[in-house]
């Protein structure tokens, strides 16, 4: 068990380290187009080959990792925070609050997001630098991704609210806010963690979809989302296995994180 944890740790360290050292490991850069060698297989010069317009895939994977590993967890954090704020609090307070919060959540879920995002895009200036696009993407993902987590949290918090230990704590004279913070929140933790980790891969993929609406990470900056989008049209799996590196990396990283976390949970329990 411990070995597994160490392995997960090492994997993450390597991935994060490599992405931070991207400039040194892949001096080709993520934007330079080697047009003479477009869509090339792996070679000494391009370890993972080049993409359809000749950009070094290895460099793009490293830089993409940097962006996605920053963006997705940050957005997941934001959305989880919002979920606690809306769902957890509403469930804990119960009554009218819960009903209002769930109505808001339902409304939020039923909104035609596609059109709202199109409106958001329409309101934004066209000339947005790639870095600003990363920030915008983060905010959008975070602001939109909280709903399902909120519903789960609301239900969980509602059961906690009527639990014996909360009753006992109230009988000890503990104040409402403190009660939520100290007694309810720690019990929501497993749900929070689950929501957080579920959100990360979802956000990585959603980022690619936002790109369709002109809201994702802008060219030429890479992200895991845009790298995964390359796989969309791939007809055969076997012929070009190196193209699957971004996907494998995503799976490995998410698994490692989860592994690491579940172990911590166990220890805590």
């Amino acid at each position, binding site marked *: 068990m411990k070995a597994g944890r160490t392995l997960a740790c090492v994997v993450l360290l390597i991935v994060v380290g490599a992405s931070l050292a991207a400039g040194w490991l892949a001096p080709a850069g993520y934007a330079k187009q080697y047009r003479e060698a477009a869509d090339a297989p792996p070679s000494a010069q391009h370890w993972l080959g080049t993409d*359809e317009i000749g950009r070094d895939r290895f460099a793009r994977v490293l830089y993409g990792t940097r962006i996605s590993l920053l963006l997705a967890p940050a957005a997941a954090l934001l959305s989880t925070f919002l979920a606690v704020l809306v769902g957890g609090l509403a469930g804990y307070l119960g009554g009218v609050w819960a009903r209002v919060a769930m109505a808001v959540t339902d409304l939020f879920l039923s909104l035609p997001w596609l059109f709202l995002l*199109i409106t958001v895009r329409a309101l934004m200036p066209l000339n947005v630098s790639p870095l600003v696009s990363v920030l915008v993407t983060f905010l959008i993902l975070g602001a939109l991704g909280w709903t399902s987590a909120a519903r789960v949290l609301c239900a969980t918090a509602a059961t906690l609210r009527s639990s014996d230990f909360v009753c006992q704590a109230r009988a000890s004279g503990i104040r409402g806010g403190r009660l939520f913070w100290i007694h309810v929140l720690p019990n929501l933790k497993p749900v929070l963690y689950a929501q957080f980790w579920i959100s990360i891969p979802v956000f990585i993929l959603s980022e690619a979809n936002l790109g369709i*609406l002109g809201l994702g990470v802008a060219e030429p900056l890479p992200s895991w989302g845009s790298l995964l989008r390359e796989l969309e049209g791939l007809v055969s799996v076997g012929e070009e296995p190196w193209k699957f590196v971004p996907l494998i990396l995503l799976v490995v990283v998410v698994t490692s994180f989860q592994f690491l976390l579940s172990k911590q949970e166990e220890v805590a329990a």
Partner: protein
Amino acid sequence: MMRRRNSSFAPSGLARPNSSTHSLRCGLHSFAASRLGHGVRRTIFQYFLPLMFCFTFLGQVWAQGGGELRFCLRAEPKTFDPLKVEDDASVSIRYLTGGVLVRMNRQTQALEPELAQSWKVSKDGKSISFKLRTGISFSDGTPFSAEDVAYTVQQLMDPALHSPTGDAFRSGPSKVETKIISPSQIAITFPAPVAGLDRLFDQVAILSARSSKKEMAVLGPFMVADYKPGTTVLLKRNPNYWKTDAQGRKLPYLDSISLDIQPNRDVEMLRFKRGEVDLINALDSEYFDKLAATSPQLVHDAGASLDSEQMWFNEVAKAPLPAYKKNWFRSATFRRAVSQAINREDLSRVVFRGHAQPAVGPFSPANKFWFNSKLKPTVYSPQASLKSLQAEGFRLENGTLKDREGNDVVFSIITNSGNKYRERMAVLIQEDLQKVGIHVNVVTLDFPSLIERMTQTFDYEAILLGLTNVGLDPNEEMNVWLSSSENHQWNPQQKTPETAWEAEIDRLMRAQASGADAKKRKESFDRVQEIVVEQAPFIFLVNKNALSAVSSSVQGASPVILHPQTFWNAERLTVTAK
């Protein structure tokens, strides 16, 4: 009306069939409509092959014959009534079932006799007379005569029917006259001259005036035998088809054609590989290469098609852009400099893997008659580009181009999302322009948003789009080139032409439209092409090649660039059993 042709090409243009395809297509319709104006020229048919041509197939077809040809329609056919045809699937069916008076040979692009043995257009371009073949009957046995032609034309021009095909003929408000001179002779007179009148009849499938089966009685090589909505359309050989081959054998050779309705291109490709379909039209260049890698004999690259990919700057005076940017975009020097700084060879080679040709001007060289062969291709030269920019007052500082007032030259190019080719072109252009210090932001938008910016709000700087150009005649593009038109994309609906060159284009386009003399019309349009290249309101990037795939069990196929690519000579194709 234009929509159908564009919708058909939309999937190839828009790449992946995904959830947003539908809306994107709709968007494309409207744009397509705008560009191509009117007239349905894509399906230019050709059953009447010259004798010499027949011989090339002879060896193969003589021995075999029969069989069933199978291929996919990419959408449900909306109608079987040839006059109401609008969508691509219906056009394909009309091509295979409808009998026409004249047909444009899809290979030579020349007009050839079909149900009409000969025809004559009057000097003023208002009327046309046909001498018809005799002894021909419809698929249900009803005899064919001038009466049917008159009936068809009257139906076609009936305002109540709203025939999309008929729109191309509508030149004036008063009625069309049809005069039956004899059962085999007819004269049709329009209220005003119609440019390229004879060619328009390529799309007019003749209806029977008397048959009880209405539009299901046909004169073409095949007839609709069965239709299962959402699944298949089955065409059977028309037993009464009049044409024979050089040996006197009745055409068509095929017994039937099975058209599967299949919008998903991946599935189409898979079924082709399994041998379940025989033809693929408008093949994607990536698929083409994948297929070519394993079976090069199955794929056909017919060379540059009529389709063009292009970008343009927003030149609208009231556009919500800073004044200095409008100054750049309204400067021909700036536009030409951008054009020069774009490496078109690389676009063709890298983005389309060689299955595209650097574009020269508004018309593709594939348009044999109308293309102006004297146009000089834009030579890629960042140095020359920079030089002309500097002459205009721009200067390069630390790798960033600045205008006279010191503003950084930064603009965005928007393109429709989901089309990876356009996205890649934009990224290549982004890098190309960086070499002259211009910073480009690439933005992909869903099609409706893009169209809204392009036609309503004018809130854009540059747009990169591909335009499906299916007609051959420049007359179809009247409302793209006329400055007053709402489809004059770079600066639509001008009350009076804002520039001298646009005024000149207006004059030349009107001149070509009113003349019946093809040579004079060509002179006018050649000049239009020169002005467009000179002023670069549209920066033409590439002409995509017409790619297709034909199974080895099909004999006699000779894919061409014009629709319907692989099955333009369906009546002479045969399929051997596998």
